[in-house]
């Protein structure tokens, strides 16, 4: 088990966001949490990231109380936030390749991987553009590429498709699905539920200060479409930084 929420309560001032939440997230699952605006999806996501701490109860990660993710774990966690985190004065390619630069990967190898991701997400023409020159959708895709370029074992995404049209959103969800199929754990928090269905998707709903698992309405015809058109070969991505614990 990756995450376990033990009777978690969270308040902001006098506003109670969560009360007595019990939640478990297993390894190798694809989970989507939905809910109305202001229900607490981002707060829940931040508690998974270790950014927010509960006022009551405990969040456990890999069996230990989560205070803050260690640098080693963070190298195996792909984090995608609602707001962009890229450095505005660096090029798109440099931003995407930043995790690999931190890992001291050689420039040629890094360039190869970055180029592949630029191709996958249709950002090849923007490779040398400064980050601040990109549109909202392009930034979203670049954030996506940076989070996934290491091929992390756990992906936590908060509204990853908020600034994208449905075609682009499906493209990114397909990429996430490929990672899931390759063994990664994927957790998405979103305001708009994805259009696709699949029996393997765990769905949750945040409302009334708690999070509930909701039954997946299986539509096998659509399920067959998902992942049927792999956008890239996952084997191409080097299986680096994988950590058994994740």
């Amino acid at each position: 088990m990756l995450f376990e929420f033990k009777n978690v309560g969270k308040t902001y001032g006098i506003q109670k966001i969560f009360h007595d939440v019990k939640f478990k997230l297993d390894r190798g699952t694809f989970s989507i949490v939905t809910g109305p605006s202001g229900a607490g999806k981002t707060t829940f996501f931040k508690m998974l990231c270790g950014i927010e701490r509960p006022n009551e109860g405990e969040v456990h990660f890999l069996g230990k109380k989560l205070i803050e993710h260690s640098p080693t774990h963070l190298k195996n966690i792909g984090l995608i936030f609602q707001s962009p985190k890229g450095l505005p004065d660096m090029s798109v390619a440099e931003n995407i390749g930043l995790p690999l630069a931190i890992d001291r990967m050689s420039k040629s190898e890094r360039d190869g991987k970055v180029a592949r991701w630029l191709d996958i997400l249709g950002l090849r023409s923007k490779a040398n553009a400064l980050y601040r020159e990109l549109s909202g959708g392009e930034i979203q895709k670049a954030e996506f590429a940076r989070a996934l370029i290491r091929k992390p074992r756990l992906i936590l995404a908060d509204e990853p498709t908020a600034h994208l049209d449905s075609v682009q959103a499906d493209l990114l969800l397909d990429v996430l699905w490929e990672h899931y199929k390759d063994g990664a754990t994927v957790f998405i928090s979103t305001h708009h539920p994805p259009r696709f269905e699949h029996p393997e998707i765990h769905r949750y709903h945040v409302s009334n200060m708690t999070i509930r698992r909701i039954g997946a309405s299986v539509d096998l015809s659509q399920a067959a479409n998902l992942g049927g058109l792999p956008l890239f070969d996952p084997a191409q991505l080097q299986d680096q930084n994988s950590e058994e614990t994740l």
Partner: protein
Amino acid sequence: MIRFFLKEAGMLTAFVILAGLLLLCLWVSENFQRNVFKDFQNTQISVVIKDRGEPALKELLANNSNVVQYKIYRSKDNKDRLGQLYPELKNLIGPLEDKFFPTSAIVAVKDGPAFLSLLKLSPQIVETQIVHQPPMELARFIQILTFIFSLLWLLTLTLVLYFNLERLTAKEQARWSLMKMLGERPERLFLPLLYGQSLRIGVASVFAILIALISVFRVRTMFAWNWSAIPFGSWVGFFALSLLMTAVISFVLFYQRFKRVTLG
């Protein structure tokens, strides 16, 4: 911007002045120890000897292992010393016979109180005795001054580094947040930051050494004393200590600040 520049320049100036004063204090303290206290490594006792008590005292001193050394001043010696000490009384002292001046001795002993107890047991030898004390108050004052300047120097150094870090944090927070999110270790972000801090403090330390050198020169010309120069190693040691403290304080401040940088 101007306010910030003035604040930083003010802090650095304070650091330079305090470091200069600290060096000056260390130098005075060192000289004080060397010149004044070397005479007081052992307790010094002046003894006024009774008439015909000199042989007995000599025997007493020769057989006492507590005595390090002694010197006898006969009546004539004391008469001459008094004349040298008070030249204006020379005409008055000169005609007096030697017998009006007592024979005395200055005795250096390891254990002052034990020797005084021994003298009390020999009232037929000794008229009176005086224990000479080193100027402890002055020494303590210099030590306290050095300690205070050390603390102020450390405080100013910390403040200089803190304000610099705050300025850097305002500029770098977004990058640090991203790097933290990507699993970068804080020490790797800290090293480039340390170079700038070390350069700033290194230059300030050189200025502090210059100020101390100028002050030392002034003090030497103002007070004719047997001043000894500060060894070159002390300057180098101070410079190295400044850089070492910069590294340690910067890392502690940075690490605490980096811990508070959020991921999202």
